[in-house]
């Protein structure tokens, strides 16, 4: 519409006293603009690309990680609207309790967000949810937390949820699974904050990165679903990157494969399916001490 107004301005020389309302004689311009828009739309890959990979690792006998991916596109009314929901949960606690916790977390969060966000989005008379996107995420995490307290009181789980809606992404995060944004040139940025004791001690300058990797409490989380009576998830909304990748993973990947290596494997791979597999392979080659989960999302240019 900018063009439209400019065009209007050009016509309005100081001598030109006759001012027409904008909508009166601008039919042609609108048509041109619409054509231009639809042309652009047809050039764009109208969806996110997603791969997910998982491995039990080399030292565990069962898998306590759970993950969920949902990637949809709604193109209607001349609007293109991507929706993506991605969840990684890493359970902990003996006697298969960890599996129960991560399973509950992924199911409750996914089903609540689908109900509250996706269903309203695709319904015939589209409406906006009553609550904010962040409130819906917060409520889903709380619901999962309470359910885990009830079902598996001696367990806990991490939870990293990524909701992509239009041009923004919202991350809800508890624990030490991670979300990274990787640009096509290989810059890697951590978007989540580990809720681990050692990370907090690093933040406070009490220990160094090296001391952290050998620290006896390196596995202690101060915040996890199913732990404690009171807690809140970190929930933040960011602009969706224009291009590049987003990675959600459990600590089975990031604790043994350095960030630079992760970024290299992703950006040098022919596609995200190979990239995802190579991440898992790298973690296993580094000993595979824990379960490994990775969801890799490519944002088209």
């Amino acid at each position, binding site marked *: 519409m900018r063009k*439209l107004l400019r065009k209007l301005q050009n016509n309005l020389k*100081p001598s030109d006293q006759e001012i027409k309302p904008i*909508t009166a004689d601008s039919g042609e311009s609108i048509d041109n603009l619409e054509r231009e828009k639809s042309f652009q739309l047809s050039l764009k890959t109208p969806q996110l690309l997603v791969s997910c990979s998982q491995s039990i690792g080399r030292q565990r006998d069962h898998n306590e990680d759970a993950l969920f991916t949902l990637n949809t596109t709604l193109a209607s009314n001349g609007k293109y609207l991507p929706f993506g929901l991605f969840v990684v949960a*890493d359970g902990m606690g003996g006697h298969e309790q960890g599996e129960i916790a991560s399973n509950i977390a992924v199911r409750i969060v996914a089903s609540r967000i689908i109900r509250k966000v996706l269903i309203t989005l695709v319904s015939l008379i589209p409406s906006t949810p009553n609550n*904010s996107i962040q409130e819906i995420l917060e409520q889903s995490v709380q619901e999962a937390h309470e359910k885990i307290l009830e079902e598996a009181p001696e367990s806990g789980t991490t939870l990293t949820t990524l909701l992509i809606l239009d041009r923004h992404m919202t991350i809800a995060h508890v624990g030490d699974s991670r979300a990274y944004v990787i640009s096509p040139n290989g810059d890697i940025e951590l978007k989540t904050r580990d809720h681990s004791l050692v990370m907090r001690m690093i933040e406070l300058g009490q220990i160094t990165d090296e001391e952290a990797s050998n620290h006896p409490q390196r596995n*202690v989380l101060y915040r996890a679903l199913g732990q404690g009576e009171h807690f809140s998830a970190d929930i933040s909304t960011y602009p969706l990157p224009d291009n590049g990748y987003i990675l959600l993973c459990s600590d089975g990947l990031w604790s043994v494969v350095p960030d630079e290596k992760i970024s290299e494997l992703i950006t040098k791979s022919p596609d995200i399916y190979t990239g995802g597999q190579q991440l898992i392979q790298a973690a296993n080659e580094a000993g595979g001490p824990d379960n490994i989960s990775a969801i890799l999302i490519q944002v088209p240019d």
Partner: protein
Amino acid sequence: METKNRTRGLDSDIGKDAIQQMAPGSRLLDRYLIEGILGIGGMSAVYRARDMHFPNVKKLVAIKEMVNRASDPVIRETIVRNFEREANILASLDHRCIPRIYDYFSVNEKSYLILEFIKGQDLELIINNASEFLSESQIIQWALELCDVLAYLHNHQPDPIIFRDMKPSNVMITSQNHVVLVDFGIAKTFQSGQKGTMIGTEGYSPPEQYRGEATPCADIYSLGATIHHALTKRDPRLEPPFSFNERPVHQINPYVSKMTEEVVNKALQYSPENRFQTTEAMRDALINVAREIEPNQTTFPIPAINLKTKNEVQAIWEFQCEDEIRGSPAFSNGTIFVGCYDNNMYAIDAQNGSFLWKFPSEGGVVSKPVFHEDNLIFGSEDHNLYAVYIRSGKLNWTYPTKGPIRSSPLLAESHAFIGSDDTFLHAVNVHTGRQTWRVDAGSPVRSSPTIFDEFIYFGSEAGDFYCIDFSGEIKWRYKAKRAITSSPILNKGIVYFGSVDSNLYALDGDTGWVIWRFRFDKPSISTAFIIENLLFTGAIDGVIYCLDASSSREIWRFSTQNQVTGSPMLYKDSLYCGSVDGSLYCLEYRSGRLRWKFQTKGPITGTPVAHENIVYIGSTDHHLYALLA
């Protein structure tokens, strides 16, 4: 005690075997008549019951029930042992701040403690229910009693007892206003697993407790955390651990004395050797504070900040008008322009405050002027939008609306966009002063429009928020519950605005979906300011807020003495914001620390402007002030 609602139906059928509570009216051992549930924890529940061995008097007891659901025999055993240990500890104690134990027994897989019933409320509930800050002297009185009881435990023979779980919900305040420490179920040891399971109450626990160490210094830290929570009403469980020094007490609650804050800070030191070494030492420090503070100080103490009466900064110059300045000044080319309720728009020399010209309108001017080429454009309550020449103050053109104008114009694409109380947003050609279009918002538009990515955003007094394109066509609309008088700002595709419904909204600029809402204590008409993902705004609750723009998480707050209706402005590394208390505050923008304040003789409702190290602010005391930044 906060109870969790676990009875809500969930759409899966796992866990039908959830703990069954004893119903009111049922009996335990044919002796205790259950009257109600006091609280429910992970594996336990606490009941209020009547002891029927005393049929002629009503003797109440508290019954703590523990259900052992662990399948692992080792864990099972540990749980039972811990429960027994709690019973044994309690049986060996005799202190007025510790509930007495009457009995301990097991029935099937459940174990029971029969305890003295404490009539009162727990401190967490008291903190949550208080609408204002609790009084400092009251909190110190409770803290002194807590020091006493901790000292008693720490001096216990043969072995000291470390409480390990000091937090507001474990402190009961009796109806006689004394404290009682409840829940000695601390015998929670660190279980080493593949991934750690944190024990102790996060937020209140010191760093060494995560290593499994428990010393008197650990209890001192947790007591410091409890006092910090009570003074600030900020729940540490919702913050990262060991982050108290990022939330200094006075910054959240300006009524707290420096001495009290020093005691709290010392108790909360990261390293145990830097804290009070004994509870007695902490108690002595608190006694000193208590002597200094007004004894029966109630809810409205004299704020510490008011003690400074003299202005710490002097005005470089001041300019007097004939009525209140409620709007915001603007700077251009060595000149300050400001509207006034004496109906004039003034042009003042920014260097020395000398009068250059004034343009008389027929109504009060609250609109902040904008500049277009050689024109100054602003609205007046006389219904008109004016363009006057910057140099002379002579009228170029007038654009009439049908209501008072309180909005400030937005310039874009050679148009001035302005809201009016006539319910329209007007698009006016700046060259000619003629209307290009107008859009009916259905109610007065006092919010100043903003522009982003070819769309115009503004709010209305009925609470509608609009996104319209340059042709005036509505792209989307959002309905708040009350008026949107503040002006929207955009950052990274998100539009932020405050509302009289007491929320700050963050909406997706494309779609109008709500990304987050932040709840103030009172309405807000202040316009936010964003830099480096930090959002600054004010509210009628008198607070200047700094929030994380991505998450609405509060980073700091600064309490002024009255409503904050003006908007904050950042210049260099300081945030400037006026308050109805008459002061302009200069705060360090990352921490909210007060650098200085400048007291005027009337409420400040406008927003300052800064240029070349000078900050300009108008006040309803009829003056425009120039201050050194």
